[in-house]
């Protein structure tokens, strides 16, 4: 706070903007902390709904494999559809 006051004495208008920024940051901080209080991730025994087949990102495993195959051949990126490795054409 002392820094902000000093800045206002020296720079006037710029100091006021600085103070507003600090206040807005503080408000944002408070808001994000409130978010932590309400966020309650599912407990280990509550993951049944997440495990249902309808929760898959790819609806049909066979169709997903076909899509991946087409993607890889078109892009020349075998294994490039996943996170680890790939793209070199050496596998």
């Amino acid at each position, binding site marked *: 706070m002392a820094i902000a006051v000093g800045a206002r004495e020296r720079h006037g208008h710029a100091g006021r903007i600085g103070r507003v920024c600090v206040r807005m940051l503080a408000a944002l901080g*408070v808001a994000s*902390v409130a978010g932590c*209080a309400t966020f309650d991730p599912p*407990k*280990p*025994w*509550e*993951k*049944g*709904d997440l*495990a*249902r087949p309808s929760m898959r990102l790819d609806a049909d495993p066979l169709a997903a494999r076909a899509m991946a195959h087409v993607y890889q051949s078109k892009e020349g990126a075998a294994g490039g559809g996943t996170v680890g490795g790939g793209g070199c054409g050496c596998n």
Partner: protein
Amino acid sequence: MREFAVTLLVAMLVAAPARATRTGEPAPAFALSTASGDTVELARLRGRVVYVDFWASWCTPCRRSFPWMNELEARYRDSGLTIVAINVDKRREDALRFLRDVPARFTVVFDAEGRMPAAFDVKGMPSSYLIDREGRVAAVEEGFHDDRAAALEQRIRALLERH
């Protein structure tokens, strides 16, 4: 600003999660019903070694733990072991379908509200709690590992031999 910090600190202390069930402590009491409507009460199993297992139909390792628990039940029932498998499925049909695939020859009870896993503070699925004859938690097992089954069985045998 200081007031805010104090408020935040208090809020964090209040919001601290429930303490985990630790070995040596009394196991949380439960009374749950089986598929046929009988009530299984932990307090009434005092004097027996109880193996409480939390499972769900969507839990893949549970599928492998059932045959092992069937064996345990067959081998140690007469020596004083009771296996109570607590199902935590939200839908009873899911659990019953699982049981048709993987038959259980031990006690299965249902807790769709998830009150007991919360009381035991289950950290992962499946989780098992070995409870001694005095009703204290002797061992906590997270997950099912084939290579740990033998050691766990040894532990059960040691508890059964203690009177």
